[in-house]
Each structure stands twice: as structure tokens, then as C-alpha cells.
């Protein structure tokens, strides 16, 4: 009997944490921002190398950055989003992460 108490608590904690879990399931977006100096072909090459996207998709994303000022290039778990953001920054692109609204 003594052991049931902690188990119940664990169950309750699990239920309480469900709300938080739902909250953190909103994906994190990796955003790349436009700048006036980076050659378009360089952006395409960096996207292809970091994400492994097709040339067509990389070109579409590059054009979205160019015309709209920013583009969402990847979406998912926070840790991976942060990792991709760092890779993009190391490659010289202006990038940030933000949680999906």
C-alpha cells in the first residue's frame, strides 16, 4: 500500500504536465532573413548542403527570402531547430528560431 501513494502522485503529475506537453508540441520554426549582399546562388548552395533539399526547393526558399524578407526553412523540435539555426549562422546566413504561433 505504501507504494501506491507515489504512483498516484506520478500519475497526477503526468496529467498536470499534459498541458505543458501540448504547449511544447507547437513546432519551432527556423527563419532565414534577407540581406542585400549575399549572392542568391550561395543561399541555394547553403540550403542544399545543410538541409539536403532538392535544388528546386532550395531555389524556391531562396526566392521567398529575397521577395518576402524572410522564409521559414525548417520546422520541428526545438533542439533540431536550434541546431539548424546555428549551422545557418556558421555558414553566414542571418537566421533565428521562433515557436509556431
Amino acid at each position, binding site marked *: 500500500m505504501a507504494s501506491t501513494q507515489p504512483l498516484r502522485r506520478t500519475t497526477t503529475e503526468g496529467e498536470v504536465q499534459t498541458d505543458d506537453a501540448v504547449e511544447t508540441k507547437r513546432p519551432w520554426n527556423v527563419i532565414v532573413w534577407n540581406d542585400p549582399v549575399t549572392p542568391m546562388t550561395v543561399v541555394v548552395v547553403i540550403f542544399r548542403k545543410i538541409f539536403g533539399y532538392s535544388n528546386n526547393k532550395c531555389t524556391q526558399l531562396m526566392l521567398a527570402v529575397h521577395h518576402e524578407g524572410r522564409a521559414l526553412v525548417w520546422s520541428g523540435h526545438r533542439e533540431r531547430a536550434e541546431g539548424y539555426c546555428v549551422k545557418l549562422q556558421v555558414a553566414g546566413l542571418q537566421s533565428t*528560431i521562433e515557436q509556431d504561433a
Partner: protein
Amino acid sequence: MFIRRRDGRVEVRMNDYGRSVVRSAFANVLAAERDPDHEWHVALTGPIDPSLDQDNPVSMLKRQTETSTNAELASLTVDEQFLNDAEAWVWLTTLQVALRSTAQTNGLHTDEQLAAADEQMLAYVHTLQSLLFELAACF
């Protein structure tokens, strides 16, 4: 200036002036990463998550380490005639970091600001862009 050869290596065909521009760019990125007072340092430490007061220290360290490692390898190979794939990649990323740091440090955030930049600055930006354009074609 950069040619992808059949054996996979990238050949660098650059005169002394080109090498000096590249050498200076690599050295500046390396110095900026190590020296908080360097004028490019702010450009290298932009926010990862702007909604936070401070980014995850692990990610910040990873960014610093990778940028430094790339700039070091680029500096070590600056006089080489042939680059392997990894070396060519760090040349590209380090030149791109140098280009964007130059733009950011000199307030070139828009096309209009770039168009209004002085001739010397424009010439430097165009030189880095030309190098990047040709190097990107090798990937």
C-alpha cells in the same frame, strides 16, 4: 577563380591580390570570433532565439567553435592551389561570414543603403560577392 576538377578537388586560380583579399577576410573572421572588441564581433553573435534575453550557452559555444574552426582551416589553406571538398566549403562559409559581417558593421541592411555606400566599400563587397559566386558554382 575556382574550378571543380574531375578528381573532385577545387582548383584555386587567383592572383596575389585575390589571395590577399581572401587572407584578410579569413583573418578578420578568426580575430572577430576571439576578440569581443573587434568590429565584426557583434555580427558573429546575433541572437538564435530573439524572444529570450540570452540564448542557450551550448548553442552559442557550438556556433563560436564551428565558426573559429572553419576560419582556422580556411586560413591554413589560403595559399593552396587545390582544395578538397571540406576545405572549399569552409572557404565558402568563411567568405560569406566576412561578407555579411562587413555589410552589418557598415550599416548595409537594405538595397538602398548598399547603393549609397562609398565606392571603396562597394568594390570590396563586389569582390567578395564575385569570389562567392564562383565558389558556389563548384557545389
